[in-house]
């Protein structure tokens, strides 16, 4: 028998197989139990040793070459089938992916978190108080008696209600009543900031009837104006992340402080916006009013239940919305309270922008 010819014939048929099914049929035809090559192998048993010696290797070689050819052809056909499938599974990845909504943190909240972080490092806790206040806490205890012209400086929203002690109820005009509440509740020494909503009957391009203020209060022994200046400088440098913040202190008047100090900060105009830094007297610079402050008036310390001969300290108040605008570049206060999603998405912050001292409290644009 011409094993070589049988082999060539088999290999040719294997090579001609075009799919896995026909290849499998060939495998059965050649190598299955009843297969032609399997049949040849079975003839070996009936052969003489000599004959087996010469014929055996030929049959084995035949079987091996066919097996190999089948395997190779199978792999080739499988690869082709996979290629065809993948080609059919092509998709357009320029189509949009599923959208996940993107949330945002309001700039006021972000800035309040920044303030809490900075002041915590200086040992200040955050204190709060009611926004619906009585006139004793909002005015009288802060050395603004009924007849004081300074009451007229605060355009106060009143309620028709009186509390159980007959005090007129109103919307707090500043965060300063928290000074009184903290002193009465916690005694001294005190280091707090008190952020929150405040209200004045005022509405124009730069004023809204509701806005945010943060109060600072330090009551201790031996506290003086120099400590106030350091605290404000340190805070502003940390908040604006600039070492060139320059403050200008001017004497002023607030009933609850004595001496009272208005604090200006130097700025320059860059790309049409005010950028803090540098002395206001430097070329191309100016001063802008930033906050009011002073040494807490003795009468206020006494109203807080503390002995003004023993304790003294300073207080300051600053507009939160305003420093948010200065830092992050918004120019319309009214937009803060509109809830316009486009504005919130643009000026709001990622929830992951948690202010930390090690990374800098600010969230870069």
């Amino acid at each position: 028998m011409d094993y070589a010819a049988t082999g060539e014939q088999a290999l040719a048929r294997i090579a001609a197989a075009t799919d896995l099914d026909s290849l499998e049929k060939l495998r059965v035809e050649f190598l299955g139990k009843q297969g032609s090559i399997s049949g040849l192998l079975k003839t070996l048993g009936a052969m003489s040793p000599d004959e087996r010696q010469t014929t055996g290797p030929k049959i084995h070689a035949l079987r091996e070459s066919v097996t190999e050819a089948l395997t190779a052809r199978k792999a080739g056909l499988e690869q082709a089938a996979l290629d065809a499938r993948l080609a059919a599974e092509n998709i357009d990845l320029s189509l949009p992916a599923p959208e996940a909504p993107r949330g945002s943190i309001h700039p006021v909240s972000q800035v309040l978190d920044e303030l809490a972080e900075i002041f915590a490092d200086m040992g200040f806790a955050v204190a709060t108080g009611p926004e619906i206040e009585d006139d004793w806490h909002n005015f009288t205890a802060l050395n603004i008696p009924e007849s004081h012209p300074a009451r007229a400086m605060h355009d106060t929203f009143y309620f028709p209600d009186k509390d159980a002690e007959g005090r007129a109820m109103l919307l707090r005009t500043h965060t300063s009543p928290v000074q009184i509440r903290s002193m009465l509740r916690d005694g001294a020494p005190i280091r707090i900031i008190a952020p929150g909503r405040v209200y004045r009957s005022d509405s124009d391009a730069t004023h809204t009837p509701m806005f945010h203020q943060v109060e600072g209060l330090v009551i201790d022994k031996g506290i003086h104006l120099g400590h106030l200046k350091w605290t404000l400088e340190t805070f502003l440098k940390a908040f604006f992340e600039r070492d060139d913040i320059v403050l200008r202190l001017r004497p002023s008047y607030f009933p609850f402080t004595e001496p009272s100090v208005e604090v200006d900060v130097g700025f320059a105009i860059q790309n049409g916006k005010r950028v803090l830094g540098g002395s206001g007297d430097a070329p191309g610079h100016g001063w802008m009013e930033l906050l009011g402050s002073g040494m807490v008036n003795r009468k206020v310390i006494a109203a807080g239940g503390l002995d003004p001969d023993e304790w003294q300290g300073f207080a300051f108040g600053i507009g939160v919305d305003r420093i948010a605008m200065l830092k992050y570049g918004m120019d319309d206060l009214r937009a803060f309270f509109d809830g316009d999603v486009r504005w919130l998405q643009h000026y709001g912050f990622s929830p992951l922008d948690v202010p930390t001292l090690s990374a800098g409290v600010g969230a870069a644009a």
Partner: protein
Amino acid sequence: MKFSLSWLKDHLDTTASAEEIAATLNAIGLEVEGVENPAEKLAGFRIAKVLTAERHPNADKLQVLSVDTGDGQPLQVVCGAPNARAGLMGVLGLPGAVVPAGGFELKKSAIRGVESNGMMCSSRELDLGDDHAGIIELPADAPVGMAFADYQGADPVFDVAITPNRPDCMGVYGIARDLAAAGLGTLKPIAVQSVNGSFDCPTEIRTDDPEGCPAFYGRVIRGVSNGASPEWMQARLKSAGQRPISALVDITNYVMLSFGRPAHAYDLAQLTGAIFARRAQDGEHVLALNGKEYALDAGMTVIADEAGVHDIAGIMGGEHSGCSETTTDVLLEVAYFDPVRIGDTGRKLNLTSDARQRFERGVDPAFLDKGLDLLTQLILEICGGEVSRVVRAGTPPSGAKVVPYHPSLALQLGGVAIADEAQKATLAALGFGMDARWNVIVPSWRPDVDGAADIVEEVVRIHGIDNVESVPLPRTDGVARPTATPSQKLERRLRRAAAARGLNEAVTWSFLPEAEAEAFAEGNGGLWVLANPISEDMKAMRPSLLPGLLAASRRNLDRGASGLRLFELGRRYLRGDKGHSDERLTLGAVLAGEKTPRGWASGKAQVFDAYDAKAEALALLAEAGAPVDNLQVMAEAGAQFHPGQSATLRLGPKTVLARFGMLHPAILKAFDIDVPVAAVELFLDAIPAKRGAPTFARAAYATPPLQAVTRDFAFLVDAALPAGDLVRTVRGADKANVVAARLFDDFRGQGVPDGQKSLAIEVTLQPGEKSYDEAELKAIAEKITAAAAKLGAVLRG
């Protein structure tokens, strides 16, 4: 408070420039709001002589002038003024100059085809007067080419904000005194002669209200002529922003603005009998000089005669007895009024005036005679006449105060060491007296100074408060300690959790239109409603965060938004005890309109439903540390919600931690919103605080050695049975083995009897040491089926 440099120099001998003066005013606490320098406004305008004037070739009313500007080469200028003629000396605005009246910049241009190199100006164009009939005509000897500002002698005007504690600086003289103390010159003495008077005052003057008017000084001047005040006085008054009226009125205003001393001049002919201070009677009326009628009450002090009220004391005179052109005899009133009374009266009448501002802050009680002398002297000079003797009814308060002080306080409180001698010199320059032991005598014009801290302020502000050196606050050792309270930590965490879930944080007004607040007020004892809201839209304090968010949603929808996720974390304002407020930290969220827009993969847009609100509520409560697995879903979310698509989440039957669901169509209609809105409100104050000190180590945990197995159960139940009840029952049926139960199908229809539904639950079983065998699994299944049966649930075959 506005005044010109020349006015200041009446009282201050100084060579300082306007810039130096402004800088010093700022440094010593007299805040300069502006310095208006007329020279700046007039930059680019110069004196020019018209050489020739020819008819304009193309316009009847225009002329073509040749003008000498002093530069040698005459300029051609087109001019429409009828008085323009050769030889006229006028004011030319050159190209580049900005016309003060119109604010426009002059440019070289062609007017009807003829080139014009500037504009000859009228008084009105330069903001110098109302004359616009023709161009300005200057004297023939005016120097050609000179800057017009220099020719005019432009006088800078300071606008200074005076804080309410400084009534002494509501006069130019007081400002001069502060500047002198700061080393900017020498304070000039007040030049005034006392005039004794040649006859007794013919009008009786008295004070019948010594509380409201402790002192009323007065005198009569006969035979005055009340024409226009002199030009210098008019210029001063104009620089202060006042309109000159007549000599007598201008003189009282001038003395007020110069010395902070208000006074009033009555036309004696309009008075009947005695003139006196008294309390007004309830229901009395007076027509004031501003032309308005005021209703008075018995709490107000007035100046009256026997016929009626002539003056709201210390605030505004009456129309009836005011001085006019025909006034010949005048009665001068220089009084001291109680500051508190003046303030009360002014507030009640809602009437403010220059006099009120000074009296309510406290005028110098020792300046009545000097004020009267100043007025007398000016009236005699300007209006002529004959002076009576002075009548002094009552006595002004002495105002004398002594404050114990020690110079070391400058350092202790002010943080700046100032030599004793320097402190003494400053105080003396400000008019303070002092004994050897530093008992400081406060001048009568400083009602604001009554303690050592005030003296520190005086010394430090004149020394220069900006010279105070920074001193670090003492710092505790080591890393800063945490300061946030649990509530603050909760607030911060929740805010960021909500934003991380895709919600946008809004900050909305605390006040609402009353109707919107009313719609959300429920069982809290009434709204807080403002007595004096700024508008009806901002009247009632919000009892819920939802209305503000709904209003914001409407605005966004009106701007074209199709889907919104908004939240706010803030207070809602309820009634507390003792008449106080009860302000509760609350998180509100609204999910409005489209949850997902139409998409190539997802098909049509999906709108939010109540389950979206539930998901937010549960996720945020979990972040807040609430025991969400133990919460019950119960009804009664409130009338603002869809009754069938809303619920509360409660811890126990009473404590409501949150409400959520679809809002009621009536609410949406009221807010003019036409898309479905799901809402959540989380009551953060109701979330129980973690007990005990915080620990950092978590509870011990070992991963189970064997894999969990799942089994599905389908039950037929009454259609009204809340699925959550069944799930909770199944989960609790065998606590040793069942670790989770998850509902995955709620089916009604074919194969399910009417009035029933089929609920399918996937139960997760966690084997312990060894795998379950068939018998064990069967026993667990029986427990589950038995527990479910108590709810009427039947295992589906």
